[in-house]
């Protein structure tokens, strides 16, 4: 697979020269590949939000480089601005950035800043609204009369409408009810499939990332101690536990079964895998 975003020895230090100085990232080498669905997990304050803000040039590295398709994203002012359109970033609680009079105009803000012709903006707004499951009549409403979950979708549509090749979402499901969580994750998946875009999902919920991502990156105290497929990462259950992250419930159940003497493969992390593993054990084969 080809790398789309890379960081080389990326470090970021906040408030240099004051008593509040602290290193948020320390010599991080991070890679995201073309078309993959990547999960970033870490506790609050681990540096994950700082990391993703470097990927679309919102933060400037204290030292080190960030490369998009092999080229430094800070090479020129024009390039930096272009990168922001190609690497879409949805912040935590994005509904708090809505400002326009109608949903339509808010979603159109990004594409308009790109300087696209009116018809293209219109097409993108409608397509983005469709991706996140907003009905066409919602487009004419004020974003402030919508429910929390709906607002969140408008905000995500606002980034999707720029049709970024990389879509980064910082805790997109925080504070939503279970149905809302499912819908948002579904919307993201649809976009991933339809545009073959790279998705970077930031979360602290193991359950959530375990279900959706191809590859996982663990961030802790400004470094990346673990990365790999969910199966590989979750096999380091004890280390994750020590980092205060834990493993998905299914993995924990199976580790426990193994410890109790059951001859079973403990590297499962979803309910479906667990079902198959148990059925295989009982000699009935996968359903």
């Amino acid at each position, binding site marked *: 697979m080809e790398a789309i975003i890379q960081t080389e020895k990326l470090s970021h230090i906040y408030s240099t*020269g*004051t008593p509040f100085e602290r290193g948020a990232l320390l010599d991080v080498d991070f890679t995201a590949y073309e078309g993959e669905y990547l999960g970033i997990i870490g506790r609050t304050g681990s540096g994950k939000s700082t990391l993703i803000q470097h990927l679309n040039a919102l933060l400037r590295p204290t030292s080190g480089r960030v490369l998009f398709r092999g080229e430094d994203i800070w090479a020129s002012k024009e390039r930096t601005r272009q990168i*922001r*359109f190609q690497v879409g970033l949805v912040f935590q609680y994005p509904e708090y*950035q*809505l400002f326009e009079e109608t949903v339509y105009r808010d979603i159109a*803000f990004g594409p308009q*800043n790109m300087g696209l012709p009116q018809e293209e903006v219109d097409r993108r707004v409608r397509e983005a609204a469709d991706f996140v499951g907003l009905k066409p009549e919602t487009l004419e409403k004020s974003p402030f009369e919508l429910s929390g979950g709906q607002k969140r979708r408008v905000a995500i549509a*606002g980034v999707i409408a720029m049709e970024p090749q990389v879509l980064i979402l910082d805790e997109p499901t925080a504070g939503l009810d279970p149905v809302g969580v499912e819908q948002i994750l579904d919307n993201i998946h649809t976009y991933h499939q339809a545009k073959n875009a790279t998705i970077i999902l930031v979360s602290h919920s193991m359950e959530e990332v375990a279900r959706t991502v191809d590859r996982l990156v663990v961030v802790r105290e400004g470094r990346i101690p673990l990365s790999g497929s969910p199966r590989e990462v979750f096999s380091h259950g004890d280390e994750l536990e020590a980092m205060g992250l834990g493993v998905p419930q299914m993995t924990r159940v199976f580790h426990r079964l193994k410890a109790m003497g059951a001859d079973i493969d403990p590297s499962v992390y979803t309910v479906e895998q667990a079902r198959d593993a148990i059925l295989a054990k009982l000699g009935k084969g996968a359903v």
Partner: protein
Amino acid sequence: MALRDITLGQYFPGNSPIHRLDPRAKLVLTTLYIVALFLADFLVSYGIMVVLLAVAIALSRISLKSILRGMKPVVFILVITGILNLFYTPGDPIWSWGFLKISVEGLWSAFFMVIRILMLITCTFLLTYTTSPIQLTDAIERLLNPLKAIRVPIHELAMMMSIALRFIPLLIEETDKIMSAQRARGADFDTGGLRQKAKALVPLLVPLFISAFRRADELAVAMECRCYHGGEGRTRMKVLRYRAADRAVMALGLLVCVGVGVLGHFGL
């Protein structure tokens, strides 16, 4: 420049002798110091003031660097004041070029005026760097307490002030966040003419106002949930008490103030 780098009026937590002083004592001391600064007239009295400030800074363990960083926004004012005093003080010209004249008196007055402003700012920085906003408003409330007799709502004013102070860093953080979020959608806050810049602020200001109102609302509910009903009969968790050291520094402050006044009288 990131907004969060602003240090003006910021508190640096610590446990130095200056940090431990009663905030009322510090407030009184700062006020006396500023009065003394304006009474100070010449080298001897200025010398005393500089030494006092230097001792206070050393005791506070605040780095000179952080104080100097806070000075950046006032450099312009300093330069203007210096130039005005330099050229517009009447006296014997020692240098002239066209209508510009520099006199000995002008040199001195420019020099002292710049020093005076520098020290004035430094001493107020020292106050806010070593005193948390909560302590400061507490001190103001206690010091102004006598005004309640003439029905000035001191408690309410102090509460409003501490809430405002509490919200400043929150709003700065929020502004930073919203700016980043809109930048991620291609908003451009830095280029373009005045009109464009003003227009670019809409995507920042609308969410900022909405969130400020939301926060204010939540705060009001939270305060009511905890039975806040104004200052009447309210007691404090941390009661301010003067200790010997606080009385001593206030006496010292008064002494310096009077001393400098007397010295000024003799033109020293």
